[in-house]
């Protein structure tokens, strides 16, 4: 064969140089798999070249482009191996009537190809037999020397695969598997069968004679799975992508026993940092794409769930109590098909003013053509407190407390610390209560999901229902969810399709109102750490034991006697229609909804220890609140897709979007419950405060456009633009404009690039995009007033006065300009894919609250200045991301297989500019926001820890008198000596005061990574997922109490090593009541290395052999055991290094203070299909 480059490019047939790799060509086409086999004889005429040359030189087109076009036009699937069609070109075809078969027959012979219609609208294109001449090869399929073969094709899990193409190699003789994965056909003896299907690696099998026992298990083609990337208002193939998008598949998400997909994203995608800030069941998850780019605004990425943009505002879900419900929990992770994270500015720019934190596109599962398939996914597990902290026992505590008192010149609290009896004669003791054991208990986690999917050529459906329940390891806490989902697609006519995606859920969070509160507010996590061991959980008379020294609460009582039941209903979905105006022009119109309602009912029983001593008539209190939000969406897009002059591939998008929200909340509270029988506010005696209601609305009107162009799939370019008009901004700043451009070059498509070598694909790309963040309070542009303050009017009339409570603003959105460069590389037949990205995000016009002068006369809360939001400052995030997916050992047909998925990210965050403020002398100096222990200042990463530096322990009172004064006192023996860094004149001044604070830690990790190894052998699979964070600090504020040694609170065993005249070689200061020296001030004493590596998920699964499964009337059955958080390697001394007491904050991060501890979970589960 020649590599003819004649004008007509005919006939051209390149040797197959790319091995099995199946291209999916249809973008939004209809994947169609069925079992009807229709043999089709085609006349393979060969048109004489001379005849063609007499015609005026017609243009040529890429065959694959033509096929793609026809797929769209006829809503058919044309199946071929990419090396078969390759870059072959054929004469441009005029638009003409006729069946697809007619048209294929007219074109394919130009390039020595032929086709076969396996069933309706399903065509296979293969090389024409070289020697067969013009005879129909199919006729030989019926020849007498053929032998019958049959068998079954399954996926890697053993589930039957319908619609797999089975061809005799080099012919069009073939069939496809039926809904149960079975096939049968007659083949010549000693021929080779080729099994191929979208998303799986093609396999070949030689047959020597008649057989009925062929069992083929196709393995996933990772590359192929990722090939279609959802980029927002459209899709692109991975090869043509010019932006940084990471895709995470269903298997990676569904493996983990967690409430929501956001939690399961952890460690799966480079550039995406997921932290579970606390172990609260159903709580909010912190997701940051490429670092924090805002000081004050929502740092969460925008989630686009089946086309509906959802921005989780955890704080808004809360109307009552302290729960941070997570609106993303409405989606059952089992229902997710894929997650695409749009990371660089160019990819996200199509979502404009909400895209600065990246965009996460969630696509849920769809039905496939074929018989109804029923899936059942069940797991059950137990969760345990991952780690207990070592605390003092009764005798140790009594001794410690005595020292605390005597060092301050007070009488000891326990006359005999060896027999620490309670001073209350009714409960003499001695007790030795382990409050952690009393507060935490093993809890169950369970999930059930049943789904039915299937479809015909015209209708496809996926319906599922699920129930998930996670009890909390802390008493009286938990989360459960019922969800129901429908995805429906219907072809109404040749040119018109419509569909429905609907996710509905009811979730219930049961929380004590107390768990994560501060100690002084009877937080129970801190309570379990600090309640003293010398008292009982319950007294002999049944009341709760309370601390006789400080009256602090009883964590068990606080948990059991308070509750907050939050029930939310949520619907996220859309209804769409798609109409082909022209063959290449498609109109899509949709209406979507994000509806949330949450009601909460909180109750503090009469026995709540915090108010046990209150007047009986006021005991017991209740609160209720309701929040309802409707966010509707309406979008229209036009998509134009055409190839010009064979090589110019162009996709144009123009769209319009309107989204608006209305949220209404109300609430009321009462107190004075005569009994605990009815925990609803109507049973209370007195109304507390004024019942309230509140309503707010926002709207966003957007226009956007995008052009995706490539030349010969070699030179790639994408340009997009979005204009967003937001109701949050005043008219002058209403429209934000967000352009983006991305370029790519597929080096491997160049002629100079060695074809058929180790490198199968190599692409370099670069992009720039502008994204916005508009998440300021909805009405902050208005100057608002409220009624309230009175003044005597005429006579006795009193009129309420209006006072200002908000100042309007004329700010604009924050803008993030992001530059990205990347490399995509595939090697060894796609067994190795490597992605590298380097980026620089520059966020300008940071929005933050700044104090304004008193002379504005604006509302002033007690003593301080009023604030307004202003555009101040600049932040930067830069980093690199590496993703590597390898098939180390290919496990064909049940052999040993091993794949690895590795990713690592390094991000550097820095605030470049934060404006100025005046110092005490009126000079302008850089602005700082200090919120212990964090500081926001230019030049430092967001959330840097700021405090004093420990220099050592003062060894004698005499030494202390020569040291700088701390809290205006000379430090005493055993006190901590802090470093005198500077003073008002820029020099150390012999006084330890606020001038001596400095940066003492950085909570931002230097790098974070995830690595998953999957092993398979026969039906056994082992998945090992490690995840880690490196180089981040944690401020362990718990220790400022548990090692504080200042009052009657229990301490950690670390204090056994405290300083004393006989124990001087230590870093734990002396115990002393009231901490006169400020030993417990914010200092590097409590800063710890938060680096960790953890075996996040370990799953061992067994896929029942198909034969056995069949006996049980099952198509497939997988049983598995999983543990989550099995082992954690860390130097961090607290409960868990994955922690944040302020989970929603961008600037107060890495602080551990009373955070609900994480669990270790063991689960058993099955996945079955019927």
């Amino acid at each position, binding site marked *: 064969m020649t590599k003819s480059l004649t004008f007509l490019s005919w006939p051209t047939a390149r040797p197959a140089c790319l091995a099995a790799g199946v291209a999916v060509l249809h973008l939004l086409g209809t994947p169609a798999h069925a079992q009807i086999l229709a043999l089709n004889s085609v006349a393979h005429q060969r048109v004489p070249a001379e005849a063609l040359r007499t015609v005026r030189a017609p243009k040529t087109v890429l065959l694959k482009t033509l096929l793609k076009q026809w797929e769209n036009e006829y809503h058919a699937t044309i199946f071929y191996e990419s090396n078969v069609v390759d870059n072959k070109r054929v004469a441009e075809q005029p638009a003409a009537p006729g069946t697809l078969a007619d048209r294929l027959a007219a074109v394919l012979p130009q390039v020595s190809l032929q086709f076969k219609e396996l069933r309706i609208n399903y065509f296979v294109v293969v090389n024409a037999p070289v020697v067969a001449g013009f005879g129909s090869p199919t006729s030989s399929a019926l020849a007498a020397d053929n032998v019958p073969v049959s068998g079954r094709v399954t996926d890697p899990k053993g589930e039957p695969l319908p619609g797999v193409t089975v061809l005799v190699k080099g012919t069009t003789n073939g069939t496809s598997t039926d809904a149960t994965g079975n096939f049968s056909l007659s083949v010549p003896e000693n021929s080779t069968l080729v099994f191929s299907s979208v998303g799986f690696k093609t396999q070949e099998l030689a047959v020597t004679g008649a057989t009925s026992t062929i069992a083929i298990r196709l393995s996933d083609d990772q590359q192929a799975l990722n090939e279609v990337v959802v980029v927002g208002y459209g899709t692109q193939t991975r090869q043509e992508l010019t932006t940084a998008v990471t895709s995470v598949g269903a298997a990676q998400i569904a493996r983990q026993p967690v409430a929501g997909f956001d939690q399961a994203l952890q460690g799966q995608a480079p550039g995406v940092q997921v932290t579970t800030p606390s172990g609260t069941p159903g709580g909010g998850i912190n997701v940051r794409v490429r670092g924090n780019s805002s000081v004050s605004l929502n740092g969460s990425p925008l989630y686009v769930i089946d086309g509906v943009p959802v921005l989780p505002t955890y704080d808004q879900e809360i109307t009552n109590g302290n729960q941070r419900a997570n609106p993303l929990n409405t989606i059952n992770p089992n229902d997710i098909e894929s997650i695409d994270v749009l990371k660089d500015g160019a990819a996200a720019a199509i979502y404009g003013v909400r895209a600065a934190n990246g965009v996460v596109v969630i696509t849920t599962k769809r039905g496939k053509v074929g018989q109804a398939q029923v899936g059942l996914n069940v797991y059950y597990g137990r969760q345990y407190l991952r780690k207990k902290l070592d605390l003092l026992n009764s005798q140790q505590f009594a001794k410690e407390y005595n020292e605390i008192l005597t060092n301050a010149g007070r009488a000891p609290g326990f006359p005999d610390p060896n027999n620490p009896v309670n001073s209350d004669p009714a409960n003499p003791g001695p007790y030795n209560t382990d409050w952690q054991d009393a507060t935490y208990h093993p809890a169950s986690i369970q999930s059930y999901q049943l789904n039915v999917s299937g479809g015909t050529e015209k209708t496809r459906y996926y319906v599922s229902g699920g129930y998930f329940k996670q009890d909390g390891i802390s008493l009286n806490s938990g989360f459960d969810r019922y969800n129901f989902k429908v995805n429906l697609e219907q072809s109404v006519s040749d040119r018109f399709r419509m569909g429905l995606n609907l996710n509905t859920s009811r979730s219930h969070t049961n929380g004590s109102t107390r768990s994560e509160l501060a100690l002084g507010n009877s937080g129970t996590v801190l309570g379990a750490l600090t309640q003293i061991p010398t008292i009982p959980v319950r007294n002999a008379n049944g009341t709760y034991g309370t601390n006789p020294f400080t009256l602090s609460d009883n964590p068990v009582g606080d948990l059991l006697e308070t509750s907050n039941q939050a029930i939310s209903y949520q619907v996220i979905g859309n209804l769409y229609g798609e109409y082909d105006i022209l063959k290449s022009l498609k109109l899509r119109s949709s209406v979507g909804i994000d509806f949330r309602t949450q009601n909460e009912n909180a109750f503090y029983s009469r026995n709540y220890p915090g108010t046990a001593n209150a007047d009986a008539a006021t005991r017991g209190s209740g609160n209720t609140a309701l929040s309802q939000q409707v966010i509707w969406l309406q979008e229209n897009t036009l998509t134009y897709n055409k190839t010009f002059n064979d090589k110019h591939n162009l996709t144009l998008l123009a769209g319009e979007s309107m989204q608006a929200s209305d949220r209404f909340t109300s609430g009321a509270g009462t107190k004075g419950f005569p009994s605990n029988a009815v925990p609803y506010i109507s049973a209370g005696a007195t109304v507390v405060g004024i019942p309230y209601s509140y309503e707010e609305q926002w709207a966003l009107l957007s226009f956007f456009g995008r052009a995706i162009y490539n030349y010969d799939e070699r030179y790639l370019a994408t340009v997009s633009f979005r204009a967003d008009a937001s109701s949050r901004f005043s008219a002058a700043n209403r429209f934000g404009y967000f352009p983006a451009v991305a370029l790519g070059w597929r080096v491997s498509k160049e002629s100079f690039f060695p074809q058929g070598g180790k490198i199968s694909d190599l692409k370099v790309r670069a992009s720039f995009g502008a994204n916005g963040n508009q998440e300021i309070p909805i009405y902050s542009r208005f100057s608002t007033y409220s009624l309230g303050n009175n003044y005597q009017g005429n006579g006795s009339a009193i009129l309420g006065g209006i006072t200002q409570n908000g100042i309007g603003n004329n700010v604009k959105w924050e803008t993030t300009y992001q530059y990205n460069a990347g490399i995509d590389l595939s090697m060894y037949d796609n067994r190795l894919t490597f992605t590298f990205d380097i980026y620089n995000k520059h966020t300008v016009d940071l929005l933050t609250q700044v104090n*304004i002068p008193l002379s504005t006369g604006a509302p002033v809360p007690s003593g301080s200045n009023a604030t307004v939001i202003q555009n101040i400052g600049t932040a930067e995030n830069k980093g690199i991301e590496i993703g590597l997916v390898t098939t180390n050992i290919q496990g064909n047909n049940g052999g040993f297989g091993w794949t690895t998925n590795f990713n690592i990210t390094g991000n550097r965050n820095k605030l470049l500019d934060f404006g100025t403020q005046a110092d005490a002398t009126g000079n302008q100096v850089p602005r700082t926001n200090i919120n212990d222990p964090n500081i926001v200042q230019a030049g430092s990463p967001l959330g840097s820890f700021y405090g004093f530096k420990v220099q050592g322990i003062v060894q004698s009172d005499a030494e202390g008198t020569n040291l700088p004064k701390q809290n205006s006192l000379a430090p005493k023996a055993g006190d901590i000596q802090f470093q005198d860094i500077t003073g008002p004149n820029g020099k150390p001044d012999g006084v330890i005061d606020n001038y001596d604070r400095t940066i003492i830690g950085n909570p931002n990790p230097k790098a974070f990574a995830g690595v998953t190894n999957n092993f398979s052998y026969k039906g056994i699979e082992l998945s090992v997922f490690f995840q880690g964070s490196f180089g981040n600090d944690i401020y362990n504020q718990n220790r400022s109490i548990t090692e504080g040694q200042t009052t009657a609170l229990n301490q950690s065993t670390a204090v056994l090593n405290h300083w004393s005249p006989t124990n001087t070689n230590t870093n734990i200061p002396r115990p002393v009541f009231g901490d006169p020296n400020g030993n417990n001030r914010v200092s590097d004493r409590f800063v710890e290395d938060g680096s960790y590596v953890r075996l996040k998920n370990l799953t061992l699964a067994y896929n029942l052999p198909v034969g056995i499964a069949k006996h049980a009337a099952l198509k497939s059955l997988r049983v598995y055991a999983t543990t989550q958080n099995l082992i954690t390697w860390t130097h961090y001394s607290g409960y868990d290094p994955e922690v944040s007491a302020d989970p929603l904050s961008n600037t107060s991060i890495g602080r551990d203070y009373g955070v609900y501890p994480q669990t270790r979970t063991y689960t058993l589960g099955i996945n079955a299909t019927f």
Partner: protein
Amino acid sequence: MKKLFILPVAGLALLAGCNFLQKEPLTNITPNNFFASGDDAEASITAVYDALQGTGAYGQDLMTMGEMPTDNCTSANNDVNQLRTISWTPTTSQVTNVYKQAYLGVNRANVVLKYVPTVAMDTARRSQIQGEARFIRALCYFTLVRAYGDVPLRLLPTETSSPSEINLPRTAAADVYAQIVADLQRAAIQMPASNNNRATKNSANALLTRVQLTQRNWAAAQASANKVIANNIPLNSTFKSLFPAENKGPESLFEIQYNPGSGDGGNLIPDEILPLPYATYSYAKFNVPSADIIAFADTVNDRRWAYNGRLQTSGGLFVGRDHVSYVDATKNQASGANANDRGPFVFKWTSIGNGFNSTDNNYVLRYAEVLLGYAEAVNEQTGPSADVLAKLNLVRQRAGLAALTAASPQYASKQTMRNEIERQRRLEFAFEGERWWDLVRYARHTLADPSAVHTITALDIIAARRAGGTRDVNFLLFPLPQAEINTNPQLKQNPGY
């Protein structure tokens, strides 16, 4: 299928409507949903008055700022120590709070003046409301300009975050005074002739008198005072009947109302100045009468200071000797009384403190001040005259003092008459919050005209009370609050701080 095209069509129709992005606050008052009726206008002016009640204004700090640095008062309370010892700094609480509260009043008045003119309501009342807002704006700016000197002059409500509109520079004091005078002159036209609870024409002219005396614009002060005097207002028949202030007398030209029974806040001052058993708590009190003023007053003949009777609790325990302006509680035997409750105490607020929630009002302007102001203005222009004596004697005679005549030694010269008028001002208005401003006024008068000698001025007190003993003119002004300096890059601190 055709039906589905309703979607884009509906979308475009909504676009055409184009109020899609107009999302107004629904549960907040904004200028767009308010100022629609007379009730709204009344509510907005009510808030302006409310600003005067605050602790940063007459509710507490103006009352201590006007007395604690003077020869009238002393105190052992740390909260007023910096005022007493004239060692205030930019972070002194009174320095911050007075500034803050005055601008709160200015901003609220600006809201009224911006929005009320277009409210559909009774036009006469609408005009009055604007007059009242101008009066209070003038009162607040007068507080600011005499305490801090040049200050930012803001005449529109703060409704934007734009730095150029938020960070205003200082306006020259003369221009601030010009605005005050203009506001008061307009207010005097717009406000009603009488209203027990609110400001009136007489309030505006009385304040104008005080402003113009401060400017040493004697002729204008005389004219302004004359507008009040022309109304033939009587003084209260007895000085004793003036106290506590409760809208009682014809003499009251403007007082701050406290009416805690009606959902309004009460007055803190009585609890802060009175001893047990009148106060709720026992602690070191503010504004304690100094030995100097008790020695200065004629506690026998001057009915303002004379002994009036013994004060006893309901159980008959001796509390003290009532001297009208003060109580001598040196031997206080009331139950619970301790050293904090013994000694002299101001007794112009005599209701019980009621837990910092007293119903006593505070006087801002009394007719007696207009009379003395008139006398001073005329004396400074022409020296002693029958006209001066006529006004001065009204005040003297109500106090039980003999009328002065042309033969009286005080009549001898402008200087002797000046001394007499100053003496009457001090004795008449002691503890009512004006003494420091008078002393500052006298100091500036002498600085401007060394021939105008005052018996005592603020500079004498500064020299006496400040460590170092210098007559530091910088302390005639308070410093700008640090919270203002920190946030407004347009401002420079007053000299000396």
